[in-house]
C-alpha cells in the first residue's frame, strides 16, 4: 500500500512536467503582451523594452520555460505581474475558498445524486424514474451562470433567504460563512449531481441484474436492504470514479460560480490573470490545480478498494 502510494506520487512528476509545458505554451500562444498591460498602450518602445527585460520576456521562449520551471521545482512560483505578490501566497490565500466551495458542492451533489440514482433504478422505466432522469437532464444542460443568476434572483432577491453579495470565510464564522456558501455550492453541485445520479442509476441497474442480488432476495432480506446494502456497495465503485473526475471539473467550473457570486476564490483570480496576460500567475495557479486534481484521483483509487475488495495495488 505504502509502496503503491510512493509509486503514484513519483509518477506525478512527469505528469506535472507535461502540464507545466502545456500551460506555458498555451499562455504564451495567447496574443497580447503583459508589458503593454502593465505600462499602458501609449508607452514608448524604450519603456516597453525595459519592462520586458525586467520580466525576462526578452529571452527566447525555451529559456523562459527552463528558468520558470527551475524556480517551480524549488517551490518558487514567481511573482504575479499584476499584483506583485508571490503567486504561491495568493494561492494560499484564495484556494481555501475554492476548496470549500467545491467540497460543499461535491457533498451536496453526492447527497442528492446517490439517493436519486438508487430511487430511479428501483423504479426503473416508471414515471418516477423518468421524472428523476428529466431533472438530471436539466441539470446537465442548464449553464452554470444562468442557474446561479436564477438562484440569486429567487432565493436572495425575492425570498431573502440568503445574502446576495458579500463574503465571510467559513473558517472565521462557520454559520455566516455557510450562508454565503449555500447558493454557490448548490449551483455548482447541481451539474455534478446530474452526472453522478445518471452514473449511480446505470451502475445500480447493471448490478441489480446479477445473481448475488437475487441471492440476497432469496435470503429473505427486504427490498431496501437488498438495494442499499448488497447492490449499492457494488454500484458505488464506478460512481466513485465519476465523482473523482467530476470533482476535477468542479475546480474548473468554480470559475463561473465564483464570478457570479463574487467569491474571492482561485478561479476568479485565474480569469483576471488570463485577461491581463499575467504569465506567472496563470501558470502557477493552473499547475497547482492540476496537482490538486492528481491527488483527488489518487484518493479515489485508494478509496476504491473499500468498495471493491478485488482491487489489488
Amino acid at each position, binding site marked *: 500500500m505504502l509502496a503503491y502510494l510512493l509509486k503514484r506520487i513519483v509518477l506525478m512528476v512527469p505528469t506535472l512536467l507535461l502540464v507545466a509545458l502545456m500551460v506555458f505554451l498555451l499562455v504564451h500562444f495567447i496574443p497580447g503582451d503583459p508589458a503593454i498591460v502593465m505600462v499602458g498602450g501609449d508607452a514608448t518602445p524604450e519603456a516597453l523594452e525595459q519592462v520586458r527585460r525586467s520580466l525576462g520576456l526578452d529571452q527566447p521562449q525555451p529559456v523562459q520555460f527552463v528558468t520558470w520551471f527551475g524556480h517551480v521545482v524549488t517551490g518558487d512560483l514567481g511573482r504575479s505581474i499584476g499584483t506583485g505578490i508571490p503567486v504561491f501566497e495568493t494561492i494560499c490565500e484564495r484556494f481555501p475558498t475554492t476548496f470549500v466551495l467545491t467540497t460543499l458542492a461535491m457533498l451536496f451533489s453526492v447527497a442528492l445524486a446517490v439517493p436519486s440514482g438508487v430511487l430511479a433504478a428501483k423504479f426503473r422505466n416508471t414515471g418516477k424514474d423518468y421524472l428523476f432522469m428529466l431533472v438530471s437532464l436539466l441539470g446537465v444542460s442548464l449553464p452554470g451562470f444562468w442557474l446561479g443568476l436564477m438562484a440569486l434572483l429567487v432565493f436572495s432577491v425575492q425570498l431573502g433567504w440568503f445574502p446576495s453579495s458579500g463574503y465571510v470565510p467559513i473558517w472565521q464564522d462557520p454559520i455566516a460563512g455557510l450562508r454565503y456558501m449555500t447558493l454557490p455550492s448548490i449551483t455548482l453541485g447541481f451539474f455534478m449531481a446530474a452526472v453522478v445520479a445518471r452514473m449511480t442509476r446505470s451502475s445500480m441497474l447493471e448490478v441489480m441484474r446479477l*445473481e*448475488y442480488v437475487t441471492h440476497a*432476495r432469496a*435470503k429473505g432480506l*427486504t427490498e431496501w436492504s437488498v438495494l442499499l446494502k448488497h447492490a449499492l456497495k457494488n454500484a458505488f465503485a464506478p460512481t466513485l470514479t465519476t465523482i473523482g473526475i467530476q470533482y476535477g471539473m468542479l475546480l474548473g467550473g468554480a470559475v463561473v460560480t465564483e464570478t457570479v457570486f463574487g467569491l474571492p476564490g482561485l478561479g476568479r483570480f485565474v480569469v483576471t490573470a488570463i485577461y491581463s496576460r499575467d504569465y506567472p500567475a496563470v501558470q502557477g495557479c493552473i499547475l497547482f490545480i492540476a496537482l490538486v486534481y492528481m491527488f483527488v484521483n489518487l484518493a479515489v483509487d485508494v478509496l476504491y478498494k473499500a468498495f*471493491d475488495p*478485488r482491487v489489488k495495488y
Partner: protein
Amino acid sequence: MYPVLKIDNLQTHFHTRTGVAKAIDVVSFEIGKGEIVCVVGESGCGKSMTALSVLRLVPHPGRIVGGEIWLDGENLMAFSESEMRAVRGDRVSMIFQEPMVSLNPAFTIGNQLIEAVRIHRRVSRTEARERAIAMLRRVELPAPEARMDAYPHELSGGMRQRVMIAEALLLDPALLLADEPTTALDVTVQAQVLEVMVRAARESGTAIMMITHNLAVVSEIADRVVVMYAGRVVEQGTAEEIFTRPAHPYTRGLLRAIPSLPLGDDDGPRQPLYEMGGLVPSLTDLPPGCAFCPRCPEAFAPCDRERPPGFALGSTHAAACWLHRQEAER
C-alpha cells in the same frame, strides 16, 4: 401428512413486447419430506423459473399467472410479501449455479453468513458467527474461522459453493432449491461438493429440489425425477422408473444422448452419439398439441392437435404422451 412442496398447475409467463413467453406453461409435482427430486431438461425449459416461482422471486417482466404453490400445507400464493420474506432463506433456501457471481464480492464470507442467520433469528453476532463456523465445518471447508474474514474472490469455486451450501442449510430449511449447483465447478470437485450437499441436507432433514441437466448426477442422488420440456412436465417417476422404463420419447432421447466411454480392453465398435433433431419450440409460440411433437420420432394422429395430459403408468410414474393413453386406461 402434507408434502413439503406441492406445485399445482403453476403458470409463470413473461409479458414482453414480442408476446407472452410461457416460461412455465403448466407444471405440477410434489416433493416429500427429506426427499431428493431432480428436475431435468434442456436450458430454457423452465427449471430455474420453477425454483424462482417457489420463492416468488420471478424477475421482471415475469409473473406467476396461475396455479398454487403449497409449502407444508400452506399456500404460498396467498402469502403477503413480508410473509414470503419470512419463508425465504429460513424455510426454503436456494443455491445458485455460479458461485463466482452468487456471493456478493463486496462483503466477507462471515458478513454474508451472519446476515443470513440474523435476518431470521434474534441472536447476537457472536452466536451467529459460531453457528456459521460450525456449518462451514459441516460442509468440510478447510480452516473455517479464517475463511470467515475472506472475500469470495479469495476462495476457489468449490470452496465458494461449499459456503453457499452452508448458508443455505444454516437454518435447517424444509426445502433446498439447488439450481445446477455443480455445473460451474471442475469435474474433480463436482462429486465432492454434491456429496457434501446431500449429506448435510439429509442430516437436517431438508428436502432437495435439484435442477440439473446432468443425468449422471441424477442417477447418483435422485429419489425421484421430474422431466421438463418447454415449460411442462413431460414425465415423472422414481429414479429407477425413469432410467429403466422411460415412457416419454423425450426422456428416452435424453437418456440416449448420454455419451458412454468405451472402457476396458475389448474396444467394441463405437456408437455415434445420439442427437435429438429439431429445436425447442419458441415459448411465445407453443404448438397447440404436445410441445415435443415437432421433434418426436413417434408422433402420430392426436399429437399435433391435442395436448396430452399426464397418464398414470403406476402409483409413482406418469408421462404426458399419447402413446400411453391405452396403457393408462387399462
